[in-house]
């Protein structure tokens, strides 16, 4: 009953899931082979120095003490410091997360706008050649490994044709810029183009196929017949009724997929030299930089969880039938 109730329950659930993810992470990283200390100490150090160093990271405490401290710190949003660079993990996140978000969200919005529109059309024109082409294209997009396509694009359009910049978010030596200043520069857009196209091509299939299926389902509903009977134009029926109703499952799917996209950006960031959070995470995992790995992973996980939450709320807003039980 009641929105408040729903909210409280979902928030509790959210907290619980986050805690579970955080705990699982903690365990996971302790289970990893390869001692993190082997990365921070160098063989030239005397045992005493080595010991001190290990202590300074709290790695010598019993596991549960480390765990309690970890959770405590999490609650105060203190994610620790990198073993490798001593940087605060929060700073790492602040530096890299926006870059990832810009790339992901742009690709995402592009993909969903195109995907949903095509989904509406394919649903409406079921059985046409256009539908077949669109669906197969969508499937192809989903099937091609995005990193592979990224490299091909870089090679053809970057190295051979010299049409797109090869790496990063800005041109070399373009100097210090504020984040938003950079985002709205032409130079940035040029750099954004290729990764966004590759990603969007990959993302697009999902909303397209869901939207199409959802459209087909909606189109078989009685109220579509009634709309025709009311003398509405086909366009109105297609957009105001069919698409509007069919959109609901797509939006939920989209919210969940946003979370996924942030996590799945790893490969594209690597290929396009995009200074994003995914790339940092991989680096941290491979280098046993636990705090950074945990922190970045936690943020990725959190974005997935929060997006799920948002999806639920969104559904409630968009579908009047939803009662918060």
């Amino acid at each position, binding site marked *: 009953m009641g929105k408040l109730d729903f909210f409280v329950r979902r928030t509790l*659930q959210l907290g*619980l*899931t*986050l805690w*579970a*993810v955080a705990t*699982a992470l903690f365990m*996971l*990283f302790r*289970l*990893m*082979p390869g001692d993190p200390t082997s990365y921070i100490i160098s063989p030239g150090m005397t045992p005493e120095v080595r010991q001190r160093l290990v202590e300074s990271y709290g790695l010598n405490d019993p596991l549960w003490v480390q765990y309690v401290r970890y959770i405590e710190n999490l609650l105060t949003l203190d994610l620790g410091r990198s073993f490798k660079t001593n940087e605060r993990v929060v700073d790492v996140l602040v530096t890299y997360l926006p870059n990832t978000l810009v790339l992901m969200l742009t690709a995402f919005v592009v993909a969903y706008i195109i995907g949903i529109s095509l989904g509406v059309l394919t649903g409406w024109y079921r059985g046409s050649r256009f539908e077949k082409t669109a*669906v*197969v294209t969508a*499937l*192809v997009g*989903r*099937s*091609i*490994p995005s*990193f*592979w*396509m990224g*490299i*091909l694009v870089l*090679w053809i359009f970057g*190295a051979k044709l010299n049409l797109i910049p090869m790496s990063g978010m800005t041109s070399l030596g373009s100097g210090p810029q504020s984040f938003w200043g950079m985002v709205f520069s032409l130079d940035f857009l040029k750099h954004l183009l290729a990764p966004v196209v590759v990603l969007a091509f990959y993302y697009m299939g*999902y909303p397209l*196929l*869901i939207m199409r*299926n*959802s459209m*087909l*389902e909606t189109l*078989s509903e009685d109220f579509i017949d009634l709309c025709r009977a009311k003398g509405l134009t086909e366009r109105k029926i297609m957009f105001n009724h069919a698409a509007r109703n069919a959109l609901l499952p797509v939006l939920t*799917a989209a919210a*969940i*997929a946003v*979370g*996924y996209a*942030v*996590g*799945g950006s*790893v*490969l594209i960031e*690597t290929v396009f030299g995009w200074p994003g959070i*995914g790339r940092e*995470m*991989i680096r941290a*995992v*491979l280098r046993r930089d636990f705090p950074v*790995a945990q922190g970045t*992973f936690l943020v*990725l*996980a*959190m*974005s*997935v*969880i929060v997006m*799920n939450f948002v999806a639920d709320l969104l559904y409630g807003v968009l579908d009047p039938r939803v009662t918060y039980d």
Partner: protein
Amino acid sequence: MTESMSQEHERSIFEDIETDEDEQFSTWQRNLRLWKETISEQFRMLIEDPMVVLAMLTLAFFGLIAVIAPWIAQYPPTERVFTSGALIAKWVKPSFLGGEGGFILGTTAQGYDIFSQLVYGARPALMVGLVAAFMTVGLGTLVGLTAGYYGGYVDDVLMRLVDFVYGLPLLPTVIVLVTVLGPGLENIILAFVLLQWRTSARVIRALVLSLRERSFVKAAKVSGASNWRIISRHIAPNVLPMAFLYGAFAIAWAILTEAGVSFLGLGDPESVSWGVMLQSARVYSAMTEGAWWWFVPPGVCIALVVISGFLIGRGYEEIVNPELQVEG
């Protein structure tokens, strides 16, 4: 007479029933026949769509390649080939581009025969696909059935578990798990399964929840069927098509995941998969060297297998449930 019953009503249509000789008139034969009919019918429906036929042929083709790999590959996939002298034959162009040594697709930077690798690469790809799909869906179905049928606390606990797993981003988690477990095909599969069962579990649970309320389940209950009987005879067969469907999609996802993880260098170092090929092509900058014959074919193979999985899944989907949503 039905003496056993306590409240006796005088007449019964079964009063004069004669004892049957072949009571169990070969029940299993009958069941086998029915199964065969069902499967062949579904298959017939599937192959009505030319796209699905194409996809099946593609998969069959790669399956065949995987089986006969030792006969068509010229070299073992990880055996260095040498030119006449003791020199490693590396970066050799494909024979059709005039490369020496008759390597169909040339050789890698390490002196492995690309064509042989490609051919052998079908094995891990299909293995990852099939094993992962089977396990994912198996686990997902099991959880979905249990949660959906028993409901209550069981459902609550299992669904919170699903929520939790849903909170983990796929690729990053697989990467972390694979580093924990150690690189290797079986660990990639395991990591993938540990995460991906969630989708089928959720969908199947939803399906079971609705099936559970269907009156044929109630009818079975009224007849005195045990929970096990209801699950195995009434609910499971009805979720099976959905499980198959998710299996088909899982094949695609598993192969893509394997490729991605291998691309980051966490692939199985012992065997050559297409993902591993792509990774080494990338490591040795095959594209900048213009060696597209090293970089392009594995990608195309992956795409072909994956899209076949998707197409079959979708074809099946149209049969099972035309209104269903494609899984993400």
